[in-house]
């Protein structure tokens, strides 16, 4: 045991260095579950169980608590006994119905025969269906609860989502972002790279170009405009820096755009597991599988940043994060967090329930190297 533990620690250290942490919505990461109060009763005669269940389901259907099992075993060994969830507190609108000692009468009045039903007591139950195994463990401590495990989400939560090949790719792109950051001339040293994950190619990259005259030319924002440029648009004037289509080493790089059909350009095995090809289940508390292929316009060109991934050395600010959302980005990978950051630190723009687009965010990629880049502003 001790030996195995030691071994694991060594591996952990190695793992830690390559850690890629998902930035998830709070309702997924929390292990504090909300509770509701219900009335439960002991079943003294097991023969009445099915009849009781049938009548209860008609009188008090568990509309808001469908995830709960109606019957539970309590006690151990010879003392095992059955308990039944009678109804929720809010199913009883009148205060006199809520008196526990009167519960038998209340049930009878609602066509539930109390024959074989013992003591009635109050119990706490989980308010909603657990989203993760950790939440499930918390939930069943209160009352038996149904749980459908989201395998991808569990992989994400314990850091096994990306295989080593994926990690290498992700780190390589972050290295590009770090080398871009070193070109930054202004007050912030940040780099950003847009990647088409289907072909694993860099679409554009830039250092941070903000200065007193261009306060909005943050690296991610510049890249959004470079993507527009690659699609025949674009709006920025880059003071003294021209977006160079020829050299991927220039501070500001944009790939020459080709008219192409996506299938012809990027042959892709149907069984290939591209990381994050699906929307994270539970982001909005429900399953949403979205076609993650690059949306193309009528000319066969990609539309905005749909399907692209952004690698940036530090967490984007609220302006940049929302610019990425407006551009329909697919995923963001960043190095280090900042207190005012909008993808996990101060705001969670990528999982804000009111917004119409959600995207995946991972942090901690080459964190130490990203931190070392000198930075002092947003």
């Amino acid at each position, binding site marked *: 045991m001790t030996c195995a533990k030691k071994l694991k620690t060594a591996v952990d250290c190695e793992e830690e260095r390559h850690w890629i942490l998902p930035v998830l919505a709070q309702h997924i990461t929390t292990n504090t579950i909300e509770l509701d109060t219900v009335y439960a009763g002991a079943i003294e005669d097991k023969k009445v169980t099915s009849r009781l269940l049938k009548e209860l389901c008609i009188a008090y259907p568990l509309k808001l608590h469908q995830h709960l099992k109606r019957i539970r075993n309590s006690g151990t060994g010879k003392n095992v006994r059955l308990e039944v969830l009678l109804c929720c507190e809010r199913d009883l609108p009148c205060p006199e119905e809520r008196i526990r000692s009167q519960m038998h009468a209340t049930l009878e009045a609602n066509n539930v025969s109390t024959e074989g039903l013992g003591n009635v007591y109050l119990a706490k139950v989980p308010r909603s269906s657990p989203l993760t195994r950790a939440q499930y463990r918390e939930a069943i401590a209160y009352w038996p609860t149904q749980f459908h495990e989201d395998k991808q989400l569990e992989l994400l939560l314990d850091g096994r989502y990306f295989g080593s090949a994926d990690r290498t790719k992700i780190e390589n792109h972050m290295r590009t972002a770090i080398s871009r950051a070193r070109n930054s001339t202004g007050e912030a040293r940040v780099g950003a790279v847009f990647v088409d994950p289907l072909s694993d190619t860099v679409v554009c990259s830039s250092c941070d170009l903000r200065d007193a*005259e261009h306060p909005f030319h943050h690296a991610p924002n510049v890249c959004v405009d470079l993507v527009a440029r690659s699609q025949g648009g*674009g*709006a920025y004037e880059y003071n003294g820096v021209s977006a160079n289509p020829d050299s991927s080493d220039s501070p500001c790089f944009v790939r020459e755009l080709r008219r192409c059909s996506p299938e012809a350009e990027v042959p892709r095995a149907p069984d290939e597991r591209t990381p994050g090809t699906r929307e994270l289940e539970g982001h909005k508390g429900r399953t949403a599988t979205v076609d993650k292929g690059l949306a193309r316009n009528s000319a066969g060109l990609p*539309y905005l940043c749909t399907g692209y991934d952004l690698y940036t050395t530090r967490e984007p600010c*609220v*302006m940049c994060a929302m*610019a990425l959302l*407006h551009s329909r980005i697919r995923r963001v990978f960043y190095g280090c967090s900042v207190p005012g950051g909008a993808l996990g630190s101060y705001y969670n723009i990528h999982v804000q329930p009111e917004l119409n687009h959600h995207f995946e965010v991972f942090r901690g990629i080459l964190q130490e190297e990203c931190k070392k880049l000198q930075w002092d502003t947003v």
Partner: protein
Amino acid sequence: MSITNVDVLPKFLPCSIENQTPPRYTTRYSVRSSNTAKDALEQGEVPVGCMFVYRGKVLGTGGNEVNKTKNATRHAEMIGMDQVLKWCRVQGLDQACVFRETVLYVTVEPCIMCAGALRLIHIPLIVYGCRNERFGGCGSVLHVDSDSIPSYGASLKCIRGLLADDAVELLRQFYKGQNPNAPNPKLKS
């Protein structure tokens, strides 16, 4: 035409801003912003218009240019701010000093991105028309205007409700005219 709260200007604003925001001026700027929004609509853009006013002088006007530039961040406010930045450059003025005395008039509540940009350059006051339920950064979805975001500068003040009905009507026309089967019917303000 509904004008609300116009006389209730925050007291701590620079004098030059208080002087230039009596109701009749405010209305005039709002009407002009509304006309810019109409132009945007004619160009097939989401009809949002804005105007940046510094010491009674209009330094920038903008309508959405998202479709034109294929850049989803080219909102009216960003276009207008770029004009102000350019003006400062030409005049040799410090943009930070100029923006501190500049009021933004915009037909629709700035989105989260624009609200962030406006805070970055320390705009003290925004006068806007209708709320932006989908993306609003000044109260509707987030409070980027007033939250104490680390290293994002001072909060900014908002006056809302000016010509709100006109702004809503323009947006209604835009979304009504859109093909519901278009690849991206949600291209936004």
